[in-house]
């Protein structure tokens, strides 16, 4: 029989630990921003630890792709059943492709992730909203590094030989990571714009297939019809594949590397702000 149990004269709240006082405008300083990104990277990394199956694509995709392409196309592309030569052509190109595939997974993953209640909590907290997206990208770059390591190990097993130096190999890896990170912004934007993860996947496949195969990743564009050559020449994946290939095998790098960096910067400059704005507005 309690009709009025609530306290009328409340005591003072416990002091406990108070967060540091913000500046008058409530802006988040760069150091705080880094700390927030760090905490969110930890979250994304712990999620992978909790759900190791989410690493399957990064681990098995490079194994299956290398085996498949080297043994199915290798003989045909390089002629005389000479797969060894094709390995050196293909592996640097696959670095480029992997970035695209992992970036696509980011789009579908983020679509699911951002429907969860915890995103509401993040969006009501005094953190830059971009930090949630940046943390995701940092972890995905880690996944790309795992995938690329496995790709290279597979390559060495199948006969990949470095004609230049380890430094140039690392430059090729670095270039594909930078480009892959820029692609992630496109797919994050897609993931935040579309309603379901399936829809994201559908659109992504439409873009993915022509970009991957209409490039210099698998075959030399000189063997293709003229109109397609024009397409592959402007396809940023060709630029990246060429740059990575020449870094590993020796050859002119400057043009294709600069083009790749240009694409990466342009894509990030356009899609990153759009993605952050989309995340901010999403209700």
């Amino acid at each position: 029989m309690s009709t009025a149990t609530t306290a009328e004269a409340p005591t003072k709240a416990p002091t406990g630990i108070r967060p540091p006082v913000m500046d008058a405008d409530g802006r988040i300083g760069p150091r705080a921003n880094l700390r927030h990104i760090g905490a969110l990277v930890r979250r994304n990394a712990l999620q992978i630890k909790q759900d190791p199956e989410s690493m399957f694509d990064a681990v098995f995709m490079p194994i299956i792709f290398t085996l498949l392409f080297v043994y199915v196309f290798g003989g045909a592309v390089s002629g005389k059943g000479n797969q060894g030569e094709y390995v050196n052509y293909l592996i640097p190109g696959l670095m480029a492709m992997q970035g695209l595939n992992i970036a696509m997974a980011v789009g579908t993953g983020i679509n699911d992730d951002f429907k969860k209640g915890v995103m509401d909590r993040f969006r009501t907290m005094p953190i830059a909203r971009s930090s949630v997206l940046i943390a995701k990208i940092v972890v995905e770059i880690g996944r790309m590094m795992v995938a690329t390591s496995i790709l290279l190990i597979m390559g060495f097993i199948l006969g990949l030989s470095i004609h230049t130096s380890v430094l140039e190999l690392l430059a090729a890896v670095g270039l594909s990571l930078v480009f892959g990170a820029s692609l992630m912004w496109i797919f994050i934007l897609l993931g935040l714009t579309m309603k379901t993860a399936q829809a994201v996947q559908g659109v992504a496949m439409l873009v993915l297939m022509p970009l991957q195969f209409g490039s210099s990743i698998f075959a030399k564009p000189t063997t293709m019809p003229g109109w397609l050559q024009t397409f592959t020449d402007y396809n940023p994946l060709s630029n990246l594949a060429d740059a990575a290939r020449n870094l590993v095998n020796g050859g002119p790098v400057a043009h294709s590397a600069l083009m790749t960096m240009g694409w990466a910067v342009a894509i990030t400059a356009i899609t990153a702000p759009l993605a952050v704005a989309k995340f901010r507005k999403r209700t």
Partner: protein
Amino acid sequence: MTRIDNNPEGGAANAVTVRGLVKHFGDTKALDGVDLDVREGTVLGVLGPNGAGKTTLVRCLSTLIVPDAGTATVAGYDVVKQPRQLRRTIGLTGQYASVDEKLSGWENLYMIGRLLDLSRKDARARADELLERFSLTEAAKRPAMNYSGGMRRRLDLAASMIGNPAVLYLDEPTTGLDPRTRNEVWDEVQRMVAEGATVLLTTQYMEEAEQLANQLTVIDRGKVIANGGINELKAKVGGRTLQIRPTDPGQLGAMARAIAEAGLDGVSGTQAVPDEGLLNVPILSDEQLTAVVGLLGARGFGIAHIGTHLPSLDEVFLAITGQKPTLQESESDDEIQEVAA
């Protein structure tokens, strides 16, 4: 930017002030000019059926959505003009637990501590402290997805408390919980309130508002339809019921007859409820209460217990709107009846 002084009456300051808040979603007006105030250190219950606009209100006040018109300030900060400052002063516990399911309870709290700029050491200490306080220490290392509904809700409350928010929003904190778990959550909220938290609580459960809130704002279809203290609202609806438990349940009938025959001014409709061993006497004033008890004493009836019972908030809603709460889903209807039962 300076804090807006909103203390016109000189009493306790308003922690939340909402004036004429409007939010459309397409053609539907989720909020249609809502005014409300939450005084510092009090609990305001926002009561309304499903679809009344409660969650939209909370989302506006926590900067998740931008209102179309009207103003709202929380801890002196404007929701539209000063969202960054405002976010530092609020805690939100939603209808759907907003913790990361894949992370353990401890990791969730640690992460939020770090996002609120606590040092590593402080974030660890705060996580341990809050897990302990919300009786989750044993489950600290388990992923939240393996928690029961009540544990998840408690973790969610703990997460909202990390930054010692000036204002805490509880958006239907017990929706979908079984009665036992609901009581657990109520206990926690009552503790926070006793410690001086300012809370805006939305609920569709009358009983919940009665348990937790000091003040009540009733909304329906995006509009405020009543406002005031719980007892004020109940007084509007009508009188109280005096409940008397005799020492000898066998005397219920005799007592009811004695009251009826005495013809006390304005006292009528006395009912004996033998199943509960109670005598229910509708009364309108304290004088009538005294008269009834005095009469029974003078006639030599033994009284074991007396109490007065205010009308339920279901009845309040009925009295204000002339109808039962407009419910959108039959499912919620069941929930209400379950709680009211």
